[in-house]
């Protein structure tokens, strides 16, 4: 690892590493937050949208006359009325790969392609009144056949989502390395499974919303987003307005989970209508709109093939992925499944690893990033396959993992897919996990309970995560093909009094930047975090920044803040040397004092130095006044957090209900800046993944109607369905950045779905259940038990036993993987 900068040694006395309570909280716990919906402007109008209630149709007429005549209605517009300079952006253009890209306009032009597709916008003076008016708009449709099943969509003769594109296949993309044919030939056993990673919703508790206010030539947009600077850039093209005349503010943002890492139609519409009407325009999403028209995630069918030798050596892993992308693209839609490929090696030294992806249009809303974005899907596939393979070999799944782990001494380690993992100790996290879970005792208890008809199971997963997006040269246009840079920015401004303000391009929505960044900068400057304010989410006050997503905040944005602070520290040392009449190289920062090395009695506090910098009567010749520095940081590599998780579940075999008895997580996200925040991120990630594993699913029926359009049907886990989590950490610093940090925002989400599936399968193996797809709802679990019992009674070995899957419940056998019907209801 790289040396840590002076003043940031992570000693317990410094701010770094402290379990500091959050600086954000006093306003939030007293109801004084400032979310988009809390903002009200003089003369503000409200916008409501008319959305398609059919999945695929030509629009034959729109009668807006009744709505236009209603009291308080100021405007009604349709796709034909909307004059903007560019369609909504999709920013992935992979070199050498054609991605079929339909134009995606904020309001439908002639055709609707999913339930929830916006058809008309109504603006009026009353928030209830615009909903009344929207209900008076009559849209006539000529319905077209809906394309719902992604595998059927690829068959010849399937109806097309976009006639003009001539196919439902969006693109093919592959990443891999090693000789797969040789790897499979060398294997004693080849295990194949069809693993469905179903469609889910980000479901931030704050829905989306925005307010646009046009004044003269300039517009301000308040929007619930993770990427304010990028939204501004896109709006410039769409509105035909120079970028500096647009101000985008992400105020308090009530959760994102990837669903606000986007630029949406409503942001364009609010700006457009504010300009047209000369009044501020506010739009707030209802939850039904959120589930229909805020990006979904996952929705992959993974045909996975793992070759293993009898001794447990994994020879190869091949994943063929069919990705249901929906009807249009949002910002990164076709790229997200490809992100899975970068971690398809998992924690293992596998000579051949290959991922082949086919994207498919269907008449559903777009998928895009949801917490983890590709990495949970990859990890789910790998870690389920590991336990499937272990069962086939009759080997302990932990032993199989250990045998194939990349050993600690191999780091930095290049894996078959061609990426280099920065640092890791996979044996270490697993060993630590087993300090919390006594496996021998569990197996004894499990056997006893089974004799009493209680089915308890344990599941594991070990994961490695690619995060900290950056580096630009790898992720950007000539590399992976995302049309942008992936650095992060920070300005550290020390005020005359010695207090500091940090401006970050990173844009939080619950992570605790104001606390974590304050700790980093305070340590670097030799002041207390209480005196460091962190500003974010405003394109007018901070530097251009890339935003918050992909567990990049700390390792890219936090590092940028740390580096800007180091530059300030260096200037402060020069000035201190001048004031103390010493050589700059003799100045050290210790215990909050800039002092001549070893002479604490004559030290200066930052306040003394900053005052001298702002009242520059006595500064070195050639030194500029003031104390402020900027850093734009673009890392040399990604960072690679990792960990080991275990779940213990009880399955009621009469009802199929799964209860989580224990969930234990050991994660390693490098050096800890604030353990309190890390634990919070891990808890939330685990809960999100248990939600996907047991309850949550976005369901469209065969006609493309959204069945899960409210929180009544889209089942988020509540407190009553989850246990308290047991968490622990190891610390393996990253050599990539000076802080030694990695990311942790997605870790729980990445690790926990395979842990859960493996645990439920472990519980039910004696009944003959060898595999199940998520979500493990009582109905699905019960069906799997019935099918297994029907297929043969009594305990069944895991040899080439093959189960049929008539109900699409996803219990797949180990024979050649074949598409099952109706896997996605």
């Amino acid at each position: 690892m790289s040396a840590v900068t002076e003043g940031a040694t992570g000693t317990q006395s410094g701010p770094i590493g402290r379990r500091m309570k959050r600086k954000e909280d006093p306003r939030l716990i007293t109801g004084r937050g400032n979310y988009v919906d809390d903002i009200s402007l003089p003369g503000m109008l409200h916008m409501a949208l008319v959305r398609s209630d059919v999945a695929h149709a030509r629009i034959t007429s729109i009668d807006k006359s009744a709505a236009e005549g209603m009291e308080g209605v100021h405007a009604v517009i349709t796709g034909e009325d909307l004059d903007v300079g560019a369609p909504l952006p999709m920013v992935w253009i992979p070199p050498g790969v054609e991605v079929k890209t339909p134009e995606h306009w904020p309001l439908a032009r002639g055709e609707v392609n999913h339930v929830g597709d916006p058809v008309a916008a109504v603006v009026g003076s009353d928030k209830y009144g615009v909903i009344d008016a929207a209900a008076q708009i009559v849209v006539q449709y000529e319905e077209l056949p809906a394309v719902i099943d992604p595998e059927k969509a690829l068959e010849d003769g399937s109806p097309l989502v976009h006639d003009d594109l001539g196919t439902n296949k969006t693109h093919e993309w592959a990443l891999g390395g090693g000789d797969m044919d040789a790897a499979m030939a060398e294997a004693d056993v080849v295990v194949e499974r069809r693993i469905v990673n179903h469609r889910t919703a980000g479901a931030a508790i704050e829905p989306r919303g925005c307010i646009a206010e046009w004044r003269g030539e300039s517009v301000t947009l308040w929007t619930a987003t993770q990427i304010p600077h990028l939204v501004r850039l896109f709006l410039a093209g769409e509105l035909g307005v120079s970028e500096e005349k647009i101000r985008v503010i992400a105020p308090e943002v009530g959760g994102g989970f990837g669903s606000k890492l986007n630029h949406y139609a409503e942001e364009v519409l609010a700006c457009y209508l504010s300009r047209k009407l000369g009044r501020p325009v506010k739009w707030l999403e209802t939850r039904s709109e959120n589930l229909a028209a805020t990006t979904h995630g996952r929705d992959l069918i993974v045909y996975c093939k793992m070759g293993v030798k009898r001794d447990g050596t994994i020879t190869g892993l091949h994943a063929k992925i069919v990705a249901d992308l929906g009807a249009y693209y949002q910002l990164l839609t076709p790229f997200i499944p490809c992100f899975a490929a970068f971690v398809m090696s998992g924690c293992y030294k596998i000579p051949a690893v290959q991922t082949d992806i086919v994207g498919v249009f269907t008449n559903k809303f777009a998928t895009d990033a949801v917490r983890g974005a590709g990495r949970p899907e990859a990890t789910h596939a790998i870690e389920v396959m590991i336990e499937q393979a272990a069962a086939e070999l009759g080997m302990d799944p932990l032993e199989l993992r250990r045998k194939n782990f990349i050993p600690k001494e191999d780091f930095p380690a290049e894996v078959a897919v061609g990426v280099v993992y920065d640092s890791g100790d996979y044996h270490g996290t697993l060993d630590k996990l087993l300090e919390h879970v006594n496996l021998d005792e569990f197996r004894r208890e499990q056997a006893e309970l089974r004799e009493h008809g209680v089915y308890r199971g344990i599941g594991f997963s070990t994961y490695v995560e690619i995060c900290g997006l950056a580096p630009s040269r790898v992720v950007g246009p000539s590399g992976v093909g995302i049309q942008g840079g992936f650095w992060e920015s920070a300005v550290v401004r020390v005020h005359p009094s010695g207090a500091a303000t940090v401006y970050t391009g990173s844009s939080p929505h619950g992570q605790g930047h104001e606390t974590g960044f304050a700790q980093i900068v305070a340590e670097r400057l030799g002041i207390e975090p209480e005196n460091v304010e962190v500003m974010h989410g405003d394109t007018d006050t901070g530097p251009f920044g890339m935003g918050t997503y992909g567990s990049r905040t700390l390792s890219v944005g936090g590092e940028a803040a740390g580096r800007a602070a180091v530059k300030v520290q260096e200037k402060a040392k020069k000035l201190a040397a001048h004031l103390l009449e010493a050589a700059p190289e003799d100045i050290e920062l210790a215990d909050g004092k800039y002092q001549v090395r070893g002479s604490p009695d004559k030290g200066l506090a930052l306040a003394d130095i900053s005052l001298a910098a702002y009242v520059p009567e006595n500064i070195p010749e050639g030194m500029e006044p003031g104390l402020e520095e900027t850093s734009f940081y673009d890392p040399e590599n990604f960072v690679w957090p990792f960990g080991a998780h275990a779940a213990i579940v009880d399955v009621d075999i009469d009802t199929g209900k799964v209860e989580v008895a224990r969930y234990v997580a050991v994660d390693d996200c490098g050096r800890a800046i604030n353990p309190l925040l890390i634990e919070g991120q891990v808890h939330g990630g685990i809960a999100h993944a248990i939600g996907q594993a047991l309850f949550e699913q976005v369901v469209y029926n065969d006609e493309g109607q959204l069945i899960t359009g409210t929180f009544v049907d889209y089942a988020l886990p509540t407190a009553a369905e989850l246990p308290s989590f047991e968490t622990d950490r190891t610390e393996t610093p990253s050599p990539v950045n000076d802080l030694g940090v990695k990311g942790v925002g997605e870790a729980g989400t990445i690790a926990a779905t395979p842990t859960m599936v493996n645990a439920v399968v472990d519980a039910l193996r004696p009944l003959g259940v060898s595999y199940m797809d998520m979500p493990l709802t009582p109905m699905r679990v019960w069906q799997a038990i019935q099918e297994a019992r029907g297929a043969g009674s009594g305990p069944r070995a895991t040899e080439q036993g093959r189960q049929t899957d008539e109900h699409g419940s996803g219990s797949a056998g180990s024979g050649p993987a074949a598409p099952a019907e109706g896997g996605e209801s």
Partner: protein
Amino acid sequence: MAESVRVNVTVNGESRSSEVEPRLLLVHYLRDTLGLTGTHIGCDTSNCGACTVLMDGESVKSCTVLAVQADGAKVQTIEGMAPAGNGALHPIQEAFWEHHGLQCGYCTPGMIMAAADLLKRNPNPTEEEVRHGLEGNLCRCTGYHNIVKAVMAAAESMRSGEGVPA
């Protein structure tokens, strides 16, 4: 639009009187008419609980109550939980801060109000009782772990009389 009607509501100890549309939801009355934006809206179906307030001492989801139904009632919102001005916090607020019981903060006001009702009915709950007591409130950030911890800690400090606001 139906004729407006007058409602008289005592909100956080203050008498308020307004002409409202009969269909106006209590949550919009609090947020838009009275400007008390601490009470949030997260769904259309009374599932998420972000809008939870106390009405005559009992928790209600204010998106499912009409303002006219609150006529004559005493309503307490998150803004009324701590005495204004002196920086003091209610023990539940204090515990949410201490135990990192919030991340994005959007569900937090509703969660705190639901916890207040729970602890009034059951001052000494088990963890399971807290979990069941809060199942009408959704959080996507915390996995509930630290919320449960905070409510248990608040219960303890309220039982011992520590930090109860004057």
